[in-house]
C-alpha cells in the first residue's frame, strides 16, 4: 500500500479511535515498565535527596533509566517510524514518579517535596531521539546518544540538586543541607554508606571526582542502549513471528 493511500485511510473515524486506544496502551505500559525498573534499580537514589551522591547515583541512575527508555525508543522507531519513543517514555515515567511522590510520599507520609523529587531524563531522551532521527543508525545513536545520556544525567539534574549541596554548620559539624534533611527525616533508608565513599582513593582525585563518574556513566549507557534494543527485539518484536506447534 502506498503512503498516500495509507494517509487517506488514516483519516477514517475508526483509524482515529485506534490511534487513541494505542496511545492509552502506550501510556499505561510505558509508565509502569520504566517506572518499576527505575524504582527497583535506582530507587533509593531517586527517592531521597541525601542519596544523590557523586558515585552511585550518576552511574546507576542513568544506566537503569536508559534500559526501558531504549526499548520505547526502539519499538517506536521499528513499528511506527517515529523518533519519539525515548521522549515519550521519559515523560511518562516522570509523570508516574511525580504522582507517586505527591500522592504517596508527600500526602500520605508527609515527606517534603524538596526531599523526594525524582531525577529527570527528558533532555537526554530528546537528544537520543534526535540523534536517531538524524543519523538513522542505532550504532551512531548508541555511541553519541547513549554516551550523552549517561554523561549529561548529572549536569542536567545538578540544577535541581545544587541548592541541597550547600554546606551548613550545626553543633560544630559541617554537612550539606541534603544530609541535614536526611538526619531530620529518619527512615530505614537513611544512608550509612555516603560517609564512607567520601573516603577512599576516589577522594584523591580531588575536583575531578564527578567527571570520572559521569564519564563512566556515559560508557555504561553506550552499552546499556544495546541491552535495551535487545530486550525490545526479544520481547516486543520476535513474539510477533513465532508460533508454537504450528501445523
Amino acid at each position, binding site marked *: 500500500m502506498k503512503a498516500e493511500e495509507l494517509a487517506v485511510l488514516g483519516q477514517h473515524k475508526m483509524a482515529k479511535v485506534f490511534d487513541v486506544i494505542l496511545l492509552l496502551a502506550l501510556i499505561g505500559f510505558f509508565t*509502569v515498565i520504566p517506572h*518499576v525498573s527505575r524504582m527497583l534499580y535506582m530507587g533509593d537514589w531517586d527517592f531521597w535527596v541525601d542519596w544523590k551522591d557523586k558515585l552511585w547515583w550518576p552511574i546507576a541512575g542513568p544506566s537503569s533509566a536508559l534500559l526501558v527508555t531504549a526499548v520505547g525508543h526502539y519499538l517506536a522507531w521499528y513499528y511506527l517510524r517515529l523518533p519519539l519513543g525515548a521522549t515519550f517514555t521519559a515523560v511518562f515515567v516522570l509523570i508516574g514518579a511525580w504522582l507517586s511522590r505527591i500522592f504517596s510520599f508527600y500526602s500520605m507520609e508527609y515527606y517534603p517535596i524538596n526531599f523526594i523529587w525524582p531525577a529527570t531524563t527528558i533532555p537526554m531522551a530528546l537528544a537520543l531521539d534526535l540523534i536517531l532521527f538524524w543519523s538513522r543508525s542505532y550504532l551512531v545513536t548508541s555511541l553519541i546518544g547513549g554516551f550523552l545520556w549517561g554523561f549529561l544525567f548529572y549536569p542536567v539534574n545538578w540544577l535541581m540538586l545544587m541548592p541541597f549541596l550547600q554546606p551548613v554548620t550545626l553543633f560544630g559539624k559541617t554537612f550539606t543541607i541534603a544530609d541535614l534533611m536526611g538526619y531530620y527525616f529518619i527512615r530505614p533508608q537513611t544512608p550509612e554508606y555516603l560517609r564512607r565513599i567520601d573516603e577512599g582513593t576516589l577522594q584523591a582525585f580531588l575536583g575531578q571526582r564527578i567527571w570520572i563518574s559521569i564519564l563512566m556513566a556515559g560508557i555504561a549507557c553506550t552499552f546499556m542502549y544495546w541491552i535495551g534494543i535487545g530486550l525490545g527485539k526479544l520481547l516486543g518484536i520476535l513474539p510477533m513471528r513465532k508460533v*508454537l506447534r504450528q501445523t
Partner: protein
Amino acid sequence: MAATSISASVERQAVQIEEVKHDKTAHGEMPFVRFLVIGGGLGLLSLLLIRLWQGEWWFPVGMDATTPEFATYWLGLLYVEWIVLIAAAIIGFTAYRKPCPTCAVQRKELGRIDPEHELNHIGKLWATVAVAAMFGFGVSYFAEQDAVWHQIVVRDTAFTPSHIPLFFYTFPMLIIMTGVSSWYAYNRLHHLYVGEGGKGIPICYLLFPAGGWFLFANVAFNELGHSSWITEELFVQPYHWPFAWATYFFFAGFALLFKTVPRIFENLGEIAQQASTEAKASS
C-alpha cells in the same frame, strides 16, 4: 402444526442470517469504545477508591496487623478485592468463550468476515490491552507507595495496607486482563496470527500474560526473602529485581497489537472502496 412451526423457525433463521450478513446493527458503530470506557472507567474507579481508603485508614488502623480493627478494615478490603477479581475473571473468560456467531455466519454465507465487523473485533482486542495497561499504571503507583510504607512501619505481615492493593489486586488483575486479551485474540482473531485455518499458539499469547504471572510469582520469592533477611535499608536489593524483569514481558503486548495493523489498513481500504462503489451506484 409441527411443519408450520419448523418453517416459521427456518424463516426466522433466514432473516437473522440476512441481518447478520450485512451486520446492520454494527454499521458505523464502535462497540469496543463502550468496552474501553466501561472497563477503563471501572478499573480507574477501583484504583481511586483504594487510594481514598488508604488515605483514610492507613495510619489509624493500618500500623498493627494483630489488631481486630486491622482485620476489619484491611482484610475487609482484601476480601472485596478478591470478589472483584473473581467476578472480572468469570466475566472476562466466559464472555469470549465461544467463537463469535456473527463471524461464523459470515464465513459460511459470504466466505469471509465483513471488514467492519472484523475491525470491531480488532478494536476490542486493542481495548482489552489498553484496560490492562491501566492496571499496570496501578502496579507502578502502589509499588513505589510500598517503598515509602516500609520507611515508617516495621514489617509484620505480608498483608500490609500497601501490599493489599499491590500484590493481591493489581498483580492478579493484570494476569486476568492480559489473559483476557490473549483469550480474545484466540477466540476472535486467531486467523490473523496463524493464518486462515492454521493451528498453533503464537507465543505472544503466552508472553503477554506471563508478565503478570511472573510479578505474582515473585511475591512468593520476595516475601520469603523478607522473612529471612532485613533489607529495609535498600529498596534496590536483589530480590526486588525480578519484579522489574517481569514487567518486560508486557512488551509482548505490542507484538500482539501490531500483528493486527496490516489487517486494519486492508479492512479500512475495503470499506473505502465499498463506499465509493455505493456512491457511484446511487448517482
